């Protein structure tokens, strides 16, 4: 691992944050260097550099097929990398199982699976348990607390198919909370949830951020980007722009990202004249 000198890497992958001194002593929660990922030899992500700082909520925005899900899967080590390195807290993920809390797209599991809400949330604690160990009182306590945080305690003993879409999303959220990770990756957590649930989720993400956790969220609704996120990553096969929302979320950058296909410009985007 070559230490990335602060002065040497003043590249486009690094936003100039007001409080970048925070990350100076601790390794970054997520650091991606010249990442290229391809399916069947066709590159989907091209030369991605990304440094995510602790205690930020980062929105990942881009058109369909931009490679957002691919980026998250690559960070989680689910895809073979064509080139590049990914470090979590300064180390490869392999050395620290469970360091990433993960909220998948809802369609990615079979909701008829014979498990209850409680069972699913409990799975979040398995990463730190170790071989042959069974969850005990401590894990049950974590599980109870996580369910409380997403207001799902009264559903704990329901089978998961008897839940609405928004409730299923909150189960995944509770499971990620139960992982007690420092870095969270979420693939469209707001897809198909109502406004009240969306507000509750974003509130929860903010409290998590305020305890120093870092959250990467794939998001499609451009109207709420400025409101929800501290930083934003505009992605379309490569990094179009990345930095604090105020600097980066501009009409020009959005045009570049969406390639003129942008029908409605978000009200809050900067640079309108």
């Amino acid at each position: 691992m070559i230490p990335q000198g602060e002065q040497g890497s003043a590249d486009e992958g690094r936003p100039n944050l007001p409080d970048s001194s925070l990350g100076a002593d601790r390794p970054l929660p997520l650091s991606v260097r010249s990442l290229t990922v391809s399916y069947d030899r066709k590159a989907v992500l091209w030369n991605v550099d990304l440094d995510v700082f602790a205690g930020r909520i980062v929105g990942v925005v881009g058109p369909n097929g931009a490679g957002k899900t691919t980026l998250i899967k690559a960070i989680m080590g689910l895809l073979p990398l064509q080139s590049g390195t990914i470090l979590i807290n300064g180390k490869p993920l392999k050395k620290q199982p469970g360091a990433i809390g993960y909220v998948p797209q809802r369609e990615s599991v079979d909701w008829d699976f014979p498990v209850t809400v409680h069972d699913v949330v409990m799975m979040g604690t398995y990463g730190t348990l170790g071989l042959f160990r069974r969850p005990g009182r401590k894990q049950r306590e974590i599980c109870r607390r996580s369910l409380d945080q997403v207001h799902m305690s009264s559903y704990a003993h329901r089978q998961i198919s008897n839940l609405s879409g928004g409730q299923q999303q909150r189960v995944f959220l509770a499971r990620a909370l139960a992982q007690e990770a420092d870095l969270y990756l979420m693939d469209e957590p707001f897809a198909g949830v109502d406004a009240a649930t969306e507000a509750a989720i974003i509130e929860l993400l903010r409290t998590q951020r305020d305890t120093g956790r870092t959250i990467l969220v794939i998001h499609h609704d451009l109207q709420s980007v400025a409101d929800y996120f501290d930083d934003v990553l505009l992605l379309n096969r490569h990094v179009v722009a990345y930095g604090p929302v105020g600097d980066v979320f501009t009409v020009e950058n959005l045009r570049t990202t969406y390639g003129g296909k942008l029908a409605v410009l978000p009200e809050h985007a900067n640079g309108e004249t």
Partner: protein
Amino acid sequence: MNMPPLIPPFDFQTHVLGPWSSPEIAAGTFWTMATCSLVAICCGLLGCFLIVQGLALIGDAISHTVLLGIVVAFLLTGQFSGMAMLIGAGLTGIVTALLIEFIHRSSRIKQDAAIGIVFTSLFALGVILLNTMASHQHIDADCVLFGDLEFAMFDTTKIFGVAIPRSAVQLTLVTAVVASVIALFYKELLVSAFDPQLAAVLGLKPRLVRYGLMGLLSLAVVSSFQAVGAILVVAMMIAPPATAYLLTDRLPKMLLLTVVAGVISAIVGVHVAFWLNAATAGAMVCVACGLFTLAFLFSPRHGLAVGALRRFRRDDPPLADELSVSA
């Protein structure tokens, strides 16, 4: 008409007490039942993890392709039993799973077609090798499909002075291994089955778990099929777990109910076979499918009849917590 009736009249005295009437007959009945129960337990427990993932067909495939492993092991060692056969079968199971995944991943062929291709070609290869190079009095393709329970019951070994069929001994060991692996690696098996991506992120090695499962499945199959045949193995791998799946919403309960359904099928099946003078394996499959039908119709939550009744009544009050509005 002087044809004998299709179904002989049922007589409690001869058909239920008959199989237990003398010590020798009772011992035979007991070991037949024990062997069939062990088959049902070890295949059923593993089958649970297949059917919750929609992989029942892989079980079907492996229960046939192990023939290739057995024949290859025979060609290498000259034996149709023992360690070599178990290892041969275990490896073929893993190779089957690997090949299926390889074809499915590296082309546009869907999983079901990949299973069909791998399963039939490896089985055919096994049959050809068996016919041409490994003729043996007790193994042929028929015997792989239907087993030979009578023969298995006579092939005994003495343990503490008691004559016990070899296949019962082997099945006891394999069932013990299967049960302990499930107990020890329950969380790995659960997460890999429910959400392989989460399992990978948590470092639970879902691919290793998957191939381990396939290896174990092959062990269970190869220990079972000599006595009862591949068809019963497939049935016991799928019918009791499917029955249990309809009756509960939690995996541990499903495993338990699978064991119960499997053992009931074995016990009732042996008596039904005696009554109808039919093949034990066939009778057992019929009982297992009968149990499935009952669950399919009358399961308290997922049953067809119960659902119809509920729609008919319409006055079912909604569950209390469905009324409360969540935050």
